[in-house]
Each structure stands twice: as structure tokens, then as C-alpha cells.
């Protein structure tokens, strides 16, 4: 059994416990700095994770359908260090976070004209009628009633402000993320102990869901993937790329001895998403060929880690991966070699995505970025190996944020 990533490199940049008040204060400073540069008076946020970022409010994420009608909304003002939160239950300790009572407001329903009218009246009370505002996303009711809320040419794109602010993680944020990743790994260990012929994919999910909450997760963020890989790409579903179909949904399908499982899942904790990926073999030790695949995967991962540091470009990482993989791209064409992780499961920086090589060459890694690297090895006829590692980019290299062993490899 191969130990996790932390066996080789111990983390030093990540504090054991986060200071949440400081984390929120620093986010606010960052957001208001970006707002000031654009001459903004206010930033209005609807997206769940954007609201969580700006306010520090933590709540268990629901199905998107419900979220669309009952969403917390955040308002960040340029001249106020404390954000405003409009939420369904203002007396909720988890939503209240560090916010004083006069910054907590009742629910607004921005899918309805009447809801937008109420919100506009409250917003005008906070910032006046001629304020310059940015907004992260539109509902149609907001668009219809935009003259009530937005002076002049209307709002600018506030989503970009969050994207710019969130990409570099502060030490407190990293500490929160590390805890979310630890919770995920704790639950995964329970799941892996269950894997055996006859067990259904949904049984693995049942144990995962139970244990993430026992371990302290706020919510599950994606229907967990325990995909049984075909030996050949052609034995799997048709794809737009002609390549692998992954991730495919879990069902009550029972595992069979020798199944190659590609695992992919994540949870939410403290407003952050985690990510986890491994390859398991059901009821059997890996074959010599499978061990060979794992060793090639390790070689690719080592080559990428070797060039990962602040100042490197995404293209440096993809070139290292391709070089170690013998000239082919060792990742799935509909995804990437790697992606950022934070308040969202996949966010900038994307490495090796279909945005293209020019983009990769222009994307420079910076200290404080968090990367999920997920190369794959595939031998058509004998399936393949995929795992994910989460790491922090530092000035002189990187530091592991995940520590799960590669068992049974």
C-alpha cells in the first residue's frame, strides 16, 4: 500500500485551525479593494457560493431547484466592512455568522417581480438610488425591474469580482479547506472498507452520506461517483469526443470481483468544496498490468509536481504531463489535467482545458492557488488508473492538502 501525499512532503503553510473572523475580514478587504478599483458602490450576489464567500454564512446546500426560489442574497457595500445578508431564516446561527442584527434581513424572492420590488426598496435604503452596482447573475424579474435597482447603464458583471478575489486562498481559507478534505477522506475510508463483490454502488453512497455528516460536513455537493470502468472505451457509452465517458451516475448495480472503480466525490465544509478521486479494484489485488498503470500515473504526477510552483504557467504543467506520458495528453479531453478548488468544486485555474493552449501559456500560477491534479492512464483493453491530488501552490513549489493512501496499489 502506498502512503498518501503528505508522507513525502509535510504541509507548513496551512494553519491547523482557521480564524474565521480574520478570514472574513480579509475577504471583505479584498472585495472592497476590487470594487474600489471599478468605482463600485455595491455588489449584489445571488449565487449560493458567492453569497457564502462574501458573508461567511454557512448553510447546507439544497437541490438547485429549491435554491432558485429560496436563495440567500448578499450585498457588499464599498464603505462598510460588514456585508448585508438577506436570508430565509435570519435567526439562524449558521446564517448569522459574524453579522450584526442590522445587517441581517428577511428573505427576498428575486424570481418574482414583487420580490424584486421589495428588495429594491431595501437596497435603496442602504445605498441611495444613484449608486453604481455590480451583480453576479440575473433572474428575469431582476432584469425586468432593473430600472428600480440600477441607475444609468445598469449593473456590471459582479461575478468577475468574486472570481478575482477567490482565486488566491488565505491561510485561514486553506485551513478550512484542509478540514473539508480531511472529512472527505475520513468518510472515504469507511466506504473503501465496504467495497466488495455484491455491494451496490448506492450502498457505498449510503455509507458516504452518513459518515460525512458524522464527521462534520455541512452538505454533500455531488451525487458520488463509483464508476465501473469498461476495459475498452468502445464498451462504454458513446461520447461527443470519442474518448472516455466519465463521470457516469451511480445506480443499484452490484459490484463484481475485478471491477475497476473510478471514485470521484466531494463535500462542503465551512463554505468550501472538497474533491476526492481514486481508483479501486473490487475484491482483488491489482494485477501486474494495473500496478504498471499506477506506476505510470505516479510518474506523470511526479513530473507535474516537479514543475509546479509560483511563476510556472499552466502550459508548463501540461507539457510535463505529456512528456511523462510519452507524448499523449494524460487527461480526459472534456475535462482537464487540473482545476482550481475553493468555494466551487471546479474553478480557475483550469489547466489543460478546452479553453486552449494559448490560455494555458498565459495562465501563471501564483502562491495561494489551490490545484486539483487529475491525470489518467488508460490502456484500451485493460482500463486504466485515475486519482486526484489537491495541493497548494507556494513560492518555491507546492504543498499537499490531501493525504489519502493509494490502497490497494
Amino acid at each position, binding site marked *: 500500500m502506498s502512503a498518501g501525499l503528505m508522507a513525502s512532503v509535510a504541509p507548513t503553510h496551512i494553519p491547523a485551525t482557521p480564524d474565521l473572523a480574520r478570514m472574513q475580514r480579509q475577504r471583505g478587504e479584498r472585495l472592497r479593494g476590487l470594487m474600489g478599483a471599478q468605482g463600485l458602490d455595491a455588489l449584489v450576489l445571488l449565487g449560493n457560493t458567492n453569497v457564502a464567500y462574501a458573508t461567511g454564512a454557512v448553510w*447546507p*446546500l*439544497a*437541490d*438547485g*431547484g*429549491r*435554491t*432558485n*426560489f*429560496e436563495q440567500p442574497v448578499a450585498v457588499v457595500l464599498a464603505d462598510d466592512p460588514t456585508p448585508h445578508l438577506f436570508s*430565509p*431564516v*435570519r435567526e*439562524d*446561527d449558521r446564517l448569522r455568522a459574524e453579522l450584526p442584527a442590522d445587517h441581517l434581513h*428577511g*428573505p427576498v*424572492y428575486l424570481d*418574482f417581480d*414583487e*420580490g424584486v420590488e*421589495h428588495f429594491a426598496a431595501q437596497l435603496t435604503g442602504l445605498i441611495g438610488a444613484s449608486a453604481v452596482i455590480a451583480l*453576479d*447573475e*440575473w433572474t*428575469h424579474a431582476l*432584469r425586468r425591474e432593473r430600472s428600480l435597482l440600477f441607475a444609468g447603464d445598469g449593473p456590471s*458583471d459582479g*461575478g468577475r469580482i468574486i472570481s478575482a478575489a477567490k482565486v488566491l486562498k488565505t491561510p485561514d481559507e486553506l485551513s478550512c479547506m484542509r478540514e473539508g478534505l480531511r472529512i472527505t477522506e475520513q468518510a472515504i475510508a469507511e466506504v473503501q472498507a465496504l467495497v466488495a463483490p455484491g455491494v*451496490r454502488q*448506492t*450502498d457505498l453512497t*449510503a455509507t458516504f*452520506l*452518513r*459518515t460525512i*455528516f*458524522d464527521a*462534520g460536513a455541512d*452538505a*454533500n*455537493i*455531488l*451525487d*458520488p461517483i463509483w464508476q465501473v470502468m469498461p476495459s475498452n472505451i468502445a464498451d462504454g457509452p458513446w*461520447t*461527443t469526443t470519442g474518448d472516455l*465517458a466519465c*463521470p*457516469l*451516475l451511480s*445506480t443499484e448495480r*452490484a459490484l463484481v470481483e475485478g471491477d475497476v472503480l473510478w471514485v470521484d466525490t466531494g463535500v462542503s465544509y465551512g463554505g468550501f468544496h472538497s474533491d476526492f478521486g481514486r481508483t479501486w479494484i473490487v475484491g482483488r489485488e491489482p494485477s501486474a498490468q494495473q500496478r504498471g498503470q499506477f506506476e505510470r500515473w505516479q510518474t506523470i504526477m511526479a513530473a507535474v509536481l516537479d514543475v509546479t510552483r509560483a511563476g510556472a504557467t499552466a502550459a508548463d504543467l501540461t507539457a510535463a504531463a505529456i512528456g511523462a506520458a510519452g507524448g499523449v495528453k494524460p487527461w480526459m479531453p*472534456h*475535462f*482537464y489535467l487540473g482545476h482550481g478548488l475553493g468555494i466551487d*468544486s471546479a474553478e480557475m485555474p483550469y489547466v489543460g*482545458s478546452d479553453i*486552449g493552449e494559448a490560455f494555458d501559456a498565459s495562465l501563471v500560477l501564483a502562491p495561494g492557488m489551490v490545484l486539483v491534479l487529475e491525470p489518467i492512464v488508460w490502456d484500451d483493453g485493460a482500463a486504466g488508473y485515475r486519482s486526484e491530488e489537491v495541493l497548494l501552490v507556494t513560492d518555491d513549489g507546492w504543498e499537499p492538502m490531501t493525504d489519502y493512501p493509494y490502497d490497494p496499489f
Partner: protein
Amino acid sequence: MPITEVLPDDAALRLARRTRLLDEMEATDVDLLIVGREGNARYVSGAPRLWTAGSRAFGPGCVLVRASGAVHLLSTWDEGIPDDIPHENLYGISFNAATFLKVLQGIEGAATARTVATDALTFSALRLLGKAFPAAQVVDGTDLLARARQVKTPEEIGAIRASVRLAESALGETVSALTPGITERQLTGVFMEAMAAEGVTTPSGQDVAWITSRDHPWRRATRDTAVAAGDLVAFEAGVLRGGYVGELGRTHAAAEDVGVHRDLLDRSEALLRALVVACQPGAPLSGLLDAYTAAGIPAPPVPVARGLGLGFDLPLVTHALPRTASARHIEVGMVFSLTAYVWDQGVGALYVQEPIAITATGPELLSTDAVHAARSH
């Protein structure tokens, strides 16, 4: 029968839904409907896709073409995709706006479409749609979606009923775990495990249990507070089975019979009765708000009614939107859950969420358990 394959929604179900949408598009002269919200995409396509928690900014996840009835769907693979959506109408995951532009430009009638309706928008989507459909106006598609979606077919009501049954069963296991010392977070884990053990891995919410406050009508403490004997614990059990939401809310006392709170129980039952009585076809939705007023019970901060469907649905009735509630009426075929919430200082709250379907003869309860089972103990 365990489901061991990813299957599209039943053909009759999905085609009936699509026909409704096409009729609404015809009536409102919409050429293309582009949806990003998952429930809407499934309503159009009948295809299950990966469930993720939380809101998602608008993107062109699924396109319905009025002229041909064709569906174009964001999916890199064909597993679970109905055979009425051919391979050439599938477009893969992409991080590149230029790729989506090409996909949208390739849809029949893109160059000449005059009206494109969407279910939400972002700044980048507005730029994208402007380029892809140069002759078109981008309009609000949420009304036409609501008109199609909020009145259910009998098959849809059957699907919701099955979801409610699963929610009840998983809730039953969760309530069995309610003993002093357990936390809200752990109770949520018990519910999620029970749901998944029955083969369904997608919840509608993940805030399954909370200790109602004895001191404040709605205050909630942290999720790791241990339940104490005598606490009234509210449960909100919701699942998405086959994409359809089934949910119900119940309240149980830890290590005690709820029946000891006779007065609270009486008011909860009377309120729920009044709410159900208000659910007559043709009655204004505001009748549900009036039921609280008539009973002298303070309005809860959460909605009094929420539509149930493929993902959450309309109607949404809340004291925060009185004009909206007055302007709309209860229709045969609507399915929603009613919220009855009563609270007593020093005792706590009784929270009930009751899923109902509106039939020609009036409201029909979709749950099979007794709302206040504790009373009969």
C-alpha cells in the same frame, strides 16, 4: 426491482411534458427555449444528469426548438439520454464560450430565430446569445415554463407520490434515531443514509432536522447541539426520485410524547386543516396566507406553500409576496407542500409540511402517515 442502469424518464411522461412546452412556445411565439436550471432541463429532455448541490449560474444546458420539436442537450455521453435526442444533438462539457457559440449557431433556425426564451441569465450568457442568435430578442421563459410545469399530468403526480413515500420511509428511520444526545447533523446523516440505502442518492435538502427553540419562534442553534429530552425536533424530509421532489415535514419530541403539548397540537392540527380547506380549485393562493391570520398564528418566515415537481416548482406562497399570492389561483393538477408552523414560548415549535395534490374534487394528501403520530400513542 433494483435499478441498475441509468435510464431516461419514461417516454409517455417526457413526451407529454415536452408537448406542453411546445404548446406554450407556440402560444407565446417563442422560437427557442434555452434552459440552465436542472429541473427545467430534465423537464425538456427526460435525461438524468449528475446531481450537484446549490445554485448554478445560467448556462445553455438544454435547447428546445419550436419548429421541429428537437432537443439539444449538454451531455458528453449518451448514457441515460432518450433515443429521441440523437447523438448529433448532444454537445459536450466545455470551458470555452467559443465552443458553446458554435453549438448554438449550429442549431436549426439559429440565424433567423426572432424570440429566444431562457430561464435565467448571466452577463456572459447575454453576450453569447446575442452572437448566436443575431436576429433574436432574449425574453423571459420562466412564465411559459411555469404554465407548463405547475399543472401536473397524472403520471407526474404518481412520480411525486412515489418520492413522498420514499421520503416517509427514510424519515421513519431518522425518527427512530431521535434520542437525547444525537445532533442535528447526525440526524441528517441518518436520513441521507436511509434514502440512499433505498437506491436514491439525491436529496432535495440537506437540512433535515433541527431542534426548535423554546425561547424564540425561529431561532436555530448550531447543528452540533445535542438533542435534550423533551426537545421538539422538526424534520424536513425531501428526496428527488427520478428527478421528482417528494417532501414532508414532521415534528417529534425527544424521549417524550408530543401529545403532552395538547394545546400546541390542537393549534397545529387546526391550522393544517384550515390550510387544506383553503386548497380548493379556483381559490386564490392568498387563502393560505389568510388561514394563518384567521387562526391568529404568526406568519412563518418560510413559505406557506412550495410547488413540488421536477425539482422545486411553483406555486410559491409566502407572506413576503402577498400580491403574488392574491393574483394566482389554485388549479387542478397543482402539487405543493403546505407548511403549518406553530410555536409556544417555553415549549418549542410544531412544524408540519404536508404534500398535497389538487384534484377536481379538492385537495388530496399525498403522505400516508398520520401527521401527528405521537398523539395516538
